[in-house]
């Protein structure tokens, strides 16, 4: 198990290999479908973004509401492929890490390699467990989007797996093949 402190450094990214189990600590930002759509539209127009994504790690999440006494409600990853249309543009602007679940398009994998970035998979449906590692959250922008708003998460030992490393090695390609008996 590797412990990684966010924000990611180039050195850390180079050390991460597809399949590694890691615990992330530090800060990440959140964003999913609707926030990505807005950010992408701003990028296309050449306008400034309401959040600086350089060197950031983004978590594709739309949490459930927090019960009183909780920092956050259950907050597992959402399917990453829906962000594939937007992710290369964000990576080209300096985004270094993405956390979600499921496979990515060849375009995203290409952008990961080109920008020396990394894609982590968190376990889909382990929302109550993952929420234990999120200690504090605060708003950044798009609060009108509710659960889809962009927030800053302060995490400690957030569990995930390196799904696509900076060389383009991809666990969703390699691992199922090892167990395929068709």
């Amino acid at each position, binding site marked *: 198990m590797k412990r990684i402190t966010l924000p990611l450094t180039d050195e850390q990214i180079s050390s991460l290999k597809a*399949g590694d*189990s890691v615990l992330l600590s530090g800060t990440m930002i959140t964003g999913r479908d*609707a926030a990505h759509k807005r950010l992408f539209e701003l990028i296309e127009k050449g306008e400034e973004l309401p959040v600086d994504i350089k060197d950031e790690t983004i978590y594709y*999440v*739309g*949490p*459930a*509401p*927090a*019960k009183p006494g*909780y920092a956050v*409600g*259950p*907050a*597992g990853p*959402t*399917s990453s*492929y829906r962000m594939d249309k937007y992710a290369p543009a964000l990576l080209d602007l300096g985004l270094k890490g993405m956390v979600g*679940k*499921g*496979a990515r398009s060849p375009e995203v994998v290409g952008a990961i390699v080109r920008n020396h970035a990394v894609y982590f*998979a968190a*376990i*889909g*449906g*382990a*929302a*109550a*467990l*993952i*929420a*234990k590692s999120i200690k504090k959250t605060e708003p950044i922008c798009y609060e009108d989007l*509710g*659960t889809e708003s962009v927030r800053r998460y302060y995490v400690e030992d957030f*569990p995930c*797996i390196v799904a696509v490393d900076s060389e383009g090695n991809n*666990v*969703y390609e*390699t*691992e*199922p*093949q*090892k*167990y*395929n*008996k*068709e």
Partner: protein
Amino acid sequence: MDYRIIKAETITDTVKKLFTDCNYFIGDDIMSALKSARDNEESEVGKNVLSQIIENDEIAKAEQIPLCQDTGMAVLFVEYGDKVSVDGDFEDAVREGVRRAYIDGYLRKSVVDDPVFDRLNTKDNTPAIIHTKIVAGDKIKITAGGKGFGSENMSAIKMITPSYGVEGVKDFVLDTVRKAGPNPCPPIVVGVGIGATFERCAQLAKKATFREINTSNPDPRYAELEQELLTKINLMGFGPAGLGGNTTAIGVNIETSPTHIAGMPVAVNICCHAARHKTAEI
């Protein structure tokens, strides 16, 4: 004819409890299948993923919080007795139950008003999808579940023609699961509807995902098909969370219906491991 009067408030309270309960408490059938899958999983990563899912579901139960942040779109199958009268509007009472569950129960509001243009959140997770069937009797039976869309998006329907036979059914189910791959949060539950018309076939597939996975179709031919498909899906290798392994599905349920001489529609509704549904009879 004597009607049994049921208070609208009773419907609302029942629906509220069904939705909070199904989101906090995973069914015994799923928990037992997850534990057995963990013990039989070949991949170490897969075993670890299953252990974390089991731990997650235990936390949700102990703390009464949703086991997944996607608490779903509210779907209800209602069997409405023909000797029942509700002292108010039945669908309004259901809608109010959904609203209270999602607001008071700290469930995520995931419904948007317009599918294409506005996409504004309705903020109370309504409207719900209500399938009502009139049956004989003086009771109302409701099976309710929150359907997450990570898996819903991986579902498909095909108007297969009869000459393709059972092989056509198998090919379509397996192709749909293969295309879904790691995305629908495996291990999955696969609901298959066969027969009827285009729209009823899809409804049958949904109904199939609402049946306990430790049960079989009463027709032994379909029961055997359920087992065969489950075995074949687990040879694909996607494994828990799609990270490799021999547990891609924990259940395949088939529901059938009479159909037209020219058709054999097949719908595949994929559900994640958080296959949530509860039933109440009023």
